């Protein structure tokens, strides 16, 4: 049997929406097979079908040549298919061992034999080089260890075929290298791997073949050694992709944002922003590069008034803003495109028009003496919707009915329209398609050219390198380096993001 898994002509629908439309994927034994597609293309859905979480409307699945019906994850497990999820499926209050054995508990006389289970966990973890603490609670361990627990879950159930769903999203470049080693070890031990990703570099580096999905349809399967990132990207989006955003050089002027020695604690009392210093000038884009978990989120929350800062100074045009209310900060001239647009950016159950005045509803002309003026509100909404190309049936449509990209455009329109001196963009293109990403990058550069100060935080190194005029690397709550994007590369940035100092990084990467 050449193919260990075959998914043939799979069709999966959700209430009329076709997530997978006649997709075929074939996995050879002992290969690493990448599954490539943009966000929302249908990759995770296809793998959830393989894993038994969803049932396809049409199509056939074969394991080692035999047709099978995978109606639930238990059957998938019995067939040797295991899934390492992108969003970890771990119960925070349980221990590592309890999470691994859940559903396949080792018992003696009706009760769980926890000692024996811990022993087994140790054995498997040593065999595959996946270091974990069997007795630790999930809520207390690192993201890297949590991922290893996810992998151990599949190995404990005897998985021969492992599906990795966007495993590198939360890892440093060094941890990614470790993961790639782990994957190669697994292959050596006789496993076969499907790797879901949208990161072209990883595909080139580690996979043997790659199947591309676009908008639910299978586009084709290529041998990685015979292709290149540009070709893959074109297959993924269906057209020529321009990797670099066109922009002219920045000419920054006076300092707009000055942060000194900022210290912020997280909800558990741990210091996550540890004496951060930064300046952003008018007419420049400063990009914050760093791995998720180094304090970026808390840093942004502190300067936008969503989180208390312990000490430090945050000055906007000389005015001290530390620990002021969100309203005060907003009205002093700060615009913010929040990291989680559904949580902080929009009230999804309000019409998009009312979302446009979320911060300004209590000002003229949108209200007077406490009574709302809907005519003015919707007039402004309509003009913003036009200006920022927000695709919506009308300004009365509920925000939740808009696509992610259009929601984000609406938020940007709202923030930019208030004419802030400082525009903060946190993960502004997360989960958006290439078209929306291009639009948003253009807007950020436009604001910079209009003399605004722009602070960009993103986990996507490519975005940081494309868009920023200066890159500030954040590591363990401090800015550890400030580099010129023209004078560095991803490798050096990766090392800086992982804590090496500039000199070491420079030596290793010969920059």
């Amino acid at each position, binding site marked *: 049997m050449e193919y260990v898994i075959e998914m043939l002509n799979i069709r999966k629908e959700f209430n009329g929406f076709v997530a997978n439309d006649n997709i075929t994927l074939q996995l050879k034994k002992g290969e690493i097979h990448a599954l490539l597609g943009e966000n929302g293309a249908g990759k995770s859905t296809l793998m959830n079908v393989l894993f038994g979480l969803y049932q396809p409307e049409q199509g056939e699945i074969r394991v080692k040549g035999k047709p099978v019906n995978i109606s639930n994850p238990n059957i998938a497990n019995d067939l040797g298919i295991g899934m390492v999820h992108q969003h970890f499926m771990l119960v925070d209050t349980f221990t590592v061992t309890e999470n691994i054995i859940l559903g396949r508990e080792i018992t003696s006389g009706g009760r769980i034999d926890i000692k024996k289970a811990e022993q087994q966990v140790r054995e498997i973890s040593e065999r595959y080089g996946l270091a974990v603490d069997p007795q630790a609670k999930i809520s207390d361990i690192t993201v890297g260890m949590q991922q290893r627990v996810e992998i151990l879950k599949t190995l404990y159930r005897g998985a021969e075929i492992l599906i990795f769903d966007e495993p590198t999203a939360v890892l440093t470049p060094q941890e990614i290298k470790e993961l790639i080693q782990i994957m190669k070890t697994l292959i050596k031990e006789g496993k076969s791997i499907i790797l879901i990703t949208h990161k072209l570099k990883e595909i080139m580096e580690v996979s043997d073949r790659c199947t591309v999905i676009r908008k639910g349809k299978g586009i084709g399967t290529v041998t990685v050694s015979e292709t290149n990132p540009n070709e893959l990207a074109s297959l993924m989006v269906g057209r020529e992709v321009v990797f670099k955003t066109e922009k002219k050089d920045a000419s920054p002027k006076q300092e707009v944002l000055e942060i000194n020695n900022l210290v912020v604690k997280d909800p558990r009392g741990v210091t996550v922003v540890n004496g951060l210093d930064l300046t952003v000038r008018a007419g420049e884009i400063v990009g914050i590069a760093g791995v998720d978990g180094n304090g970026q989120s808390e840093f942004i929350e502190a300067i936008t008034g969503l989180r208390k800062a312990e000490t430090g100074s945050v000055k906007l045009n000389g005015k001290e803003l530390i620990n002021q209310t969100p309203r005060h900060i*907003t009205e002093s001239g700060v615009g913010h495109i929040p990291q*989680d647009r559904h949580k902080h950016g929009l*009230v*999804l159950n*309000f019409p998009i028009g009312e979302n446009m005045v979320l*911060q300004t509803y209590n000002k003229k002309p949108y209200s007077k003496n406490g009574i709302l003026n809907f005519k003015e509100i919707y007039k402004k909404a309509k003009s913003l919707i036009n200006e920022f190309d927000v695709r919506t049936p009308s300004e009365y449509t509920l925000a939740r009915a808009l696509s992610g990209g259009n929601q984000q455009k609406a938020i940007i329109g709202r923030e930019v329209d208030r004419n802030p001196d400082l525009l903060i963009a946190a993960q502004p293109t997360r989960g958006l398609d290439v078209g929306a990403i291009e639009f948003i990058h253009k807007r950020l550069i436009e604001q910079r050219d209009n003399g605004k100060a722009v602070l960009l935080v993103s986990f996507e190194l490519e975005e940081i390198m494309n868009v920023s005029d200066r890159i500030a690397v954040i590591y363990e709550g401090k800015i550890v380096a400030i580099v010129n994007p023209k004078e560095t590369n991803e490798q050096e940035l990766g090392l800086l993001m992982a804590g090496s100092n500039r000199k070491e990084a420079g030596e290793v990467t010969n920059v």
Partner: protein
Amino acid sequence: MSKRLRSILTPVIAVLLGILVGTIIMIVSGYDPIAAFTALWNGAFGDIYYIGEVVRQFTPYILAGLAVAFAFRVGLFNIGVEGQFLVGWLAAVWVGVAFDLPRVIHLPLAILAAIVAGALWAFIPGLLKARFRVHEVIVTIMMNYVALHLSNYIIRNVISHKGDNTGPIHKSATLRSEWLESLTDYSRLHWGIILAILSCFVMWFLLERTTRGFELRSVGFNQHAAHYAGMNVNKNIILSMLISGAFAGLAGAMEGLGTFEYAAVKGGFSGVGFDGIAVALLGGNTALGVFFSAILFGVLKVGALNMPLEAGVPNELVDIIIALIVFFVASSYIIRVFLDRISKKEVK
């Protein structure tokens, strides 16, 4: 099927389903459903007296429904309407009994006392939710029992002397009117209905037309976005409980100053608060919906009293039907799925 049509059909279907199951229960128990519903109808509309009683009955339901609905719109579950209603009743009667003033002062004062008492009783769970993140469901339930025992104690030991009720309020504090009584063959219909209708308008206007309402609705839908947009989430949570409690207290005034004109020691809850939850749910938590839903409940409750007399059916059957209606409204997802399916058939 348009969303608006579906949002009106869904409660209607829930009511029909409730009545249907109630009918089945009657048949299985050996009662005659037609006689029962006829008795119900007669008991509600058969006489101008009954109609007056129906209006009197649904007056506090409107307010209790508004109380629950208002809190719900801001994301809070106010199960404490029973207790806020009780303290409002007591406060109104206390003022009615303790003072003797011209009506133009006395009556508004008593009503105000009820509103303030209800608001204060709801303030505590509101504060605990806002400051300490304590879930309001349990706190409000506990406060109900505290209200019950406390008001009994006050009636027995403070207002009366070891007596079981407060005695009648002064005529200057009553909501009743001879004219209304003569109109309805001496039912207990009182002016409170005007206040109830006004309250519907107040809730609608406040929530839909003012900046404060904009904030309250934002907080109800998404506290995080509201906070980021500069709104004071805690203040709005507390305010919504205050207003909710105010409506509930006013409902108590309806009973204390209108229906009964006294307050008595109680062995258990009146049920108005829990019925208010049903009213709000059926009414989709909107002012207009609450209004119509309250009327339905008033009709059911008053008409039910005639069922044992005319058809030999225990009036608890109506309580069962009401419970079933709540079930079906709560399960409206299933009704909506069903409606979607038949509307697709129409399109094809």
